[in-house]
């Protein structure tokens, strides 16, 4: 009966274990298709529907060919895991292959998190506030109406969840004559701390180019760029600490003023490097040290009050193990009769060569006991 209760309890404990989700810590930002993560977040056996509400917003009604536009995706009302992590996609299709904005000819200047990828992992404070990611894009070279989808992957309630939004159309129109325009350009999205950044921007049809930057959502500072050859050049000041810095380019002429979306700059904090050989030495030192500690404590614990008798004189130490004890002759005279009340012959053949009479009388009985099985 008792055994049955124990077994039943163990089985119940096994049944109580919650199914775990696959990557609760996320997989990192990257350029990913809609099918990415489908094996966990899309598998009906492992996942559940998401109640997320996905909404789009953009900084202008339409984009020009090759022109800038910022698209923000906000997710709210979703279930959240204890880590509150969500992964958000900006997609140009839902086929599962070749459906990143880049596949449709868009250029992602910034994903708002210090990179230029269409998939971004971030944290939501709570499901009401949700999470917002803003992508700063350059439009393709062909006019037309382009489809965008937003998708979210997240956990919550012990399950992986995902949601794909309905379509959001963005019109890319013809370039007005004389519109200031940024030609295809690799925006700077990361740099080392303490390092100034010289930005060389291929802007056409502009009479003035200004770089605006801000820390977090703080006040905007601006620096004028100078024309050098075919590009406008400006220096973004160095960041001395890991601050959330973002910048945008304002291009203007007599008729138009064009602005790129905010481009976030990640600070490359100096990476950790270790001398691997030194680490190996430290590891071995820990191993040897812990082994020494084990052996030492085991020996101390195993010694009893009689152990001093069987040890050679050089090994006799005080009870607190801090000083050597040299037994006096008087003590020897007292100890010998206590040990073995038998006579010991001075010319015993078992006496080791080189032992003095005194040593033989003192340690002899023990020596015989240890090495010759006793017997006088």
């Amino acid at each position: 009966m008792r055994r049955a209760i124990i077994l039943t309890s163990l089985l119940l404990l096994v049944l109580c274990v919650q199914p775990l989700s696959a990557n609760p810590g996320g997989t990192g930002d990257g350029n990913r298709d809609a099918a990415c993560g489908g094996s966990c977040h899309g598998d009906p056996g492992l996942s559940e529907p998401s109640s997320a509400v996905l909404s789009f917003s953009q900084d202008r009604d339409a984009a020009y060919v090759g022109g800038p536009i910022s698209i923000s995706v906000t997710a709210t009302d979703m279930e959240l895991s204890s880590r509150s992590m969500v992964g958000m996609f900006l997609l140009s299709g839902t086929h599962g292959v070749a459906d990143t904005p880049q596949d449709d000819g868009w250029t992602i200047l910034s994903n708002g998190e210090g990179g230029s990828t269409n998939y971004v992992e971030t944290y939501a404070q709570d499901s009401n506030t949700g999470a917002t990611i803003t992508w700063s894009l350059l439009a393709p070279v062909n006019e037309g109406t382009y489809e965008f989808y937003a998708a979210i992957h997240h956990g919550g309630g012990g399950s992986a969840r995902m949601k794909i939004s309905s379509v959001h159309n963005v019109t890319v129109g013809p370039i007005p004559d004389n519109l200031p325009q940024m030609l295809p350009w690799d925006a700077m999205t990361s740099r080392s701390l303490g390092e100034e950044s010289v930005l060389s921007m291929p802007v056409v049809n502009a009479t003035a180019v200004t770089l605006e930057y801000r820390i977090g959502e703080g006040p905007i500072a601006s620096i004028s760029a100078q024309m050098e050859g075919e590009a406008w050049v400006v220096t973004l000041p160095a960041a001395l600490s890991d601050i959330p810095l973002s910048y945008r380019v304002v291009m203007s002429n007599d008729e138009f003023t064009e602005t790129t979306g905010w481009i976030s700059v990640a600070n490359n904090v100096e990476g950790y490097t270790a001398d691997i050989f030194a680490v190996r030495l430290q590891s071995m030192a820990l191993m040897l040290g812990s082994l020494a500690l084990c052996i030492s404590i085991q020996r101390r614990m195993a010694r009893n009050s009689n152990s001093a008798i069987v040890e050679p004189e050089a090994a006799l130490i005080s009870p607190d193990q801090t000083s050597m004890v040299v037994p006096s002759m008087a003590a020897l005279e007292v100890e010998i009769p206590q040990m073995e009340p038998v006579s010991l012959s001075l010319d015993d053949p078992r006496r080791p060569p080189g032992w003095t009479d005194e040593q033989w009388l003192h340690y002899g009985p023990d020596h015989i006991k240890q090495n010759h099985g006793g017997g006088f």
Partner: protein
Amino acid sequence: MVAAATLHAFSTEMLVGSMTFSVVATVLCFAESMFEKVGERAQKGLDHAAYFAAIFALCCIPIVAITGNAAGDAASSPVLVNKMLLSGLCLGLWIGVILGRKTWGPEMWSNRKMGLVHTGFVCAGYTTAAMLGSIGSVMTRGETVGDLFGIWPHFDNAPSISFGLSMVLFVLSLTALLVVIFVQPKSEVELNL
């Protein structure tokens, strides 16, 4: 071919399984030496099970360390550096556990003080292995069951010790071990071996 990370996961599971078995059997042995409920025969069986599981776990530790070394670049990751340091500590403690059990034999459990010390070392070795597993879990899954304890360390920072100082530490540890082996008075059991 099988990736080093897969072999690492496989050998880790073997290690943790055998270590857990050894720890449970050791704790039961100690409990029996305290309360004397199941009898000497059962205690002897548990002692042997703990001993051989510990030896198997010891054989797994180098495999785990080697495959783990091949699976990641420790030079650029403080977490992996901490894994290497804890691996050394775990190996040292576990060798000490097995040496102790080999020296004292099953009679160790008749001395409660010895039994307590032995159980303490077994638990310390297992805790170190659990920390290693916890670090691996944080790296691959982003979380660890250790978080449930609230005070579980995450090892995001590693000591930065120069090569010279590392060498000094190594020499000191080696000296300490040699002093313990050759200078510290041996116990009666060792003298009678």
